[in-house]
């Protein structure tokens, strides 16, 4: 049966058409959206799909180790265990998990949150939250939170003689890598970069190349396929010219005093020991410990006094002045000046440490007679003195392979005029002649300058590098000063008398029977004076050049006492060749 209604109550045709049109328009809207996603932005979404399932798992490379000249390890990579999480896995229980972890590890919850925020690089990327826990603790925690935690082993830099080598080695720091090909997979790797010291200077050799596995993962982060591997390449080992035993003794000799000890090979400029006190523990930088005390310390332990500190050098200038005088023919070895303990210039009185009487050059050096060098200075004049000090490179860098070296300063009349709008007075010349006033230089620079007297007139370029991997370092940076050997020997002999002569300023070193020659220095400061000694031994054919600097140490006597202990220790332990 059919229930037909007569006539056309409804305009069905029109309604059907309208309905179809609505459907058609709706579907076209869907097609436009689809076209936008699939055709116009298709490649963008394809990339995102790949990011979803392709994951880079880093394979860390080992950074090259650093050894001393005898193969003793100074810095090397060790396995450390970090705790990481996958952000998406802990999205609902993050706070609770961090709270528990903080309790279990005895660290602050804040630190964990901070690390999480700092290291999160993607929803599906492992994010380190706790660093450097012991293997046992890491595994125990993993067992407690198997679904949330990931033990993420990574190499960590370890400094084995941290205090002795802090200034020489520097440390490493994690920084975002610039070169990684994993970036496009949302993984921002961290690279360890050398900061300061050998770690920075030879960074390109020490640095390895990180590798990685490209894998396919499912939504739970389970690896379901392997796409490829780039093997990590280890960095090169670096061998230093330093003798770690001597370095250690240098550290112990200076103990709590401020200053530096430098021991180099006289001919080669190879550095056998270079220690700046106070020092610091570079491992603190690796562990991310609180560094504020280090930065706030009033004695600036981070500062390398041997290469970055410039100080007045006092009487250490005298042998350099002597060379200038002899070379310029202004004095002869037998030229004498009469020391009555003081020299009057206008209204000013310039003093000597004693009343030495008539002094020739040799005696003047042995006694460190100021009067002799006041007179020599006045004869030479400031311009000549400055020129000769510059010839000894006191105002330039030594180009040691430790970054951030500072250069010293040699004043000139011209400089004074420009700087202070004042003329250069004779008093300035007198001050300069005994290493006071505006002149200042690094302990290393003055060591290299006096070393030139020991090795026959060569300014060596100091270096710490023995070899990289199997490549031996080449030493050829040696600059001749063109100073007559005769004059050099005259000054050298004078320096030997400071020790060998019973009235010599460094006579206490005589007991060592090392044949040491050298010069003491006491540099006046606004506070306690700096104490200096730079010397070389054995006298006939110097092998070693040694220097000690005591910052506000009182006088050269304190410096000599420490140096005596240092050298005595080396001798007792057969660490230096003795004739």
């Amino acid at each position, binding site marked *: 049966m059919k229930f037909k209604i007569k006539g056309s109550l409804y305009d069905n045709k029109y309604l059907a058409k309208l309905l179809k049109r609505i459907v058609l328009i709706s579907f076209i809207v869907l097609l436009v959206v689809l076209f936008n996603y699939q055709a116009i932005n298709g490649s963008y979404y394809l990339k995102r799909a790949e990011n*979803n399932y392709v994951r880079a798992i880093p394979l860390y490379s080992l950074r090259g180790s650093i050894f001393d000249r005898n193969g003793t390890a100074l810095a090397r990579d060790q396995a450390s265990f970090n705790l990481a999480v996958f952000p998406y896995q802990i999205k609902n229980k993050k706070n609770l998990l961090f709270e528990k972890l903080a309790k279990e590890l005895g660290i602050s919850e804040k630190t964990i949150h901070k690390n999480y925020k700092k290291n999160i690089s993607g929803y599906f990327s492992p994010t380190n939250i706790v660093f450097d826990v012991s293997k046992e603790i890491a595994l125990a925690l993993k067992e407690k939170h198997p679904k949330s935690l990931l033990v993420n082993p990574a190499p960590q830099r370890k400094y084995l003689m941290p205090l002795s080598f802090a200034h020489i080695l520097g440390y490493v720091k994690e920084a975002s890598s610039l070169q990684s090909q994993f970036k496009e997979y949302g993984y921002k790797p961290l690279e360890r970069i050398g900061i300061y010291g050998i770690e920075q200077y030879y960074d390109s050799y020490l640095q390895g190349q990180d590798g990685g596995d490209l894998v396919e993962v499912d939504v739970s982060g389970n690896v379901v396929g392997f796409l490829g591997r780039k093997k990590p390449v280890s960095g090169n080992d670096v061998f230093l010219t330093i003798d770690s035993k001597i370095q250690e003794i240098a550290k112990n000799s200076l103990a709590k005093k401020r200053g530096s000890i430098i021991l180099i090979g006289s001919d080669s400029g190879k550095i056998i020991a270079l220690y700046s006190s106070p020092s610091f523990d570079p491992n603190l930088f690796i562990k991310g410990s609180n560094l504020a005390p280090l930065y706030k310390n009033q004695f600036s332990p981070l500062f390398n006094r041997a290469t970055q500190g410039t100080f007045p050098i006092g009487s250490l200038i005298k042998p350099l002045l002597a060379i200038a005088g002899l070379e310029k023919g202004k004095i002869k070895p037998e030229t004498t000046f009469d020391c009555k303990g003081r020299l009057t210039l206008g209204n000013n009185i310039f003093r000597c440490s004693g009343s030495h009487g008539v002094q020739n050059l040799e005696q003047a050096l042995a006694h460190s007679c100021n009067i002799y060098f006041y007179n020599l200075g006045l004869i030479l004049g400031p311009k000549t003195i400055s020129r000769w000090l510059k010839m000894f490179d006191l105002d330039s860098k030594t180009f040691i392979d430790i970054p951030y070296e500072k250069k010293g300063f040699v004043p000139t009349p011209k400089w004074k005029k420009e700087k202070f709008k004042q003329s250069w007075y004779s008093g300035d010349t007198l001050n300069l002649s005994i290493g006071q006033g505006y002149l200042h230089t690094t302990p290393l620079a003055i060591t290299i300058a006096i070393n030139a007297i020991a090795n026959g007139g060569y300014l060596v370029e100091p270096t710490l590098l023995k070899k990289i991997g199997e490549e031996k370092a080449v030493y050829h940076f040696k600059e001749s000063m063109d100073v007559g050997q005769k004059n050099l020997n005259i000054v050298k002999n004078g320096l030997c008398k400071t020790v060998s002569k019973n009235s010599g300023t460094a006579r206490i070193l005589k007991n060592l029977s090392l044949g040491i020659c050298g010069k003491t220095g006491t540099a006046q400061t606004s506070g306690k004076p700096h104490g200096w000694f730079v010397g070389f031994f054995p006298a006939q054919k110097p092998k070693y050049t040694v220097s000690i600097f005591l910052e506000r140490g009182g006088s050269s006597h304190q410096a000599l006492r420490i140096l005596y202990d240092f050298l005595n220790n080396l001798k007792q332990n057969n660490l230096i060749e003795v004739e």
Partner: protein
Amino acid sequence: MPYLKKITRELSGLKTITLSVILLNLISIISLYSSLHQQGQFVGETLLSKQITWIVASWLVFIIFNYINYRLYYNLAFFIYAFSLVLIGAVYFIGYEAMGAQRWLSFGGLTFQPSELAKIAIIIIMAWFLSHPPVNSFLKSFFLPFSFVGLSALMILKQPDLGTAMLVVLIAFGMGLFSKINKKYFIWVLIFVLIAAPFSWGMLKSYQQKRLTTFINPNIDPLGSGYTIIQSKIAIGSGQLFGKGFLAGTQNQFNFLPERHTDFIFTVIAEEWGFLGSLFILLIYWLIIKKVFDKLKKIRDPFAYYLTLGIGIYFFLHVFINIGMTLGVFPVVGLPLIFISYGGSHLMSTFILLGIFFNISRNYK
């Protein structure tokens, strides 16, 4: 083969729909097969065979309904409506929970969603009301039928199943809009809702508001906000023009798509078959819906007219909202893609509606 001849004769004029539905069934099986893979492993033997069983059963039910004269529903309209309410109510007492919502009833081994039946019941009861000559009274011609719809929708909402509740209301509204009900009533209601909504929103406590927003979009979560939608968009977009190929959808295979064999099956198809595949699917649905609405021109019985209208709107809204949802155009509400998504209840009701439509068609050739 007299039977076959009879069937083909009876299907004449409905060939397009029949073939289209068969095609969708095949697409359903193929895409379910793909969506039930994990990392190259087929893990859904039970689900797939279950679905094939449902398809076969649905075809049988379809043939039965094809022979039931549609006027029967006119007489049984209130009974069917009441029955659907009873079943929805029964869910609270004997239904079981899945995915945080009580929607299923179990008869023996067969689970069934009564809210699917409610969609059919609403189409029938609306057709019943609308087929009566309209009176110029808001209460009688608008309020009365829509209070039946509202009651049903509220009960579905309680399950909670916002998607179906909304769909029931939308189907009823759609049918009403194409009826003789005075259109100004709709405008009144619309204005009332627009005015009342902000007030009632402000009256809600913040936790209630939050519950409502997550209710509308269950995938809002603080860390992976709209995770499902983001993954769905990535999957669809990465399919590009020609797709990644059968079983080669990485979003699908590596498990990045939740609900991918049910509500997000279209995402799987779009990822593996690209824009061309998506276009093809929409084309088939267009053919079916177009044929249903075309029939309206020939129908002279108001009840049959409104039934057909409801059925067409039902098909259209399911397809439009489901696909729009996978594209992020609509919020994520639990609506299946008819004929393709996994699930027996909606397949059965869709085929029942198809059977009713076929019966009407044979009456108005």
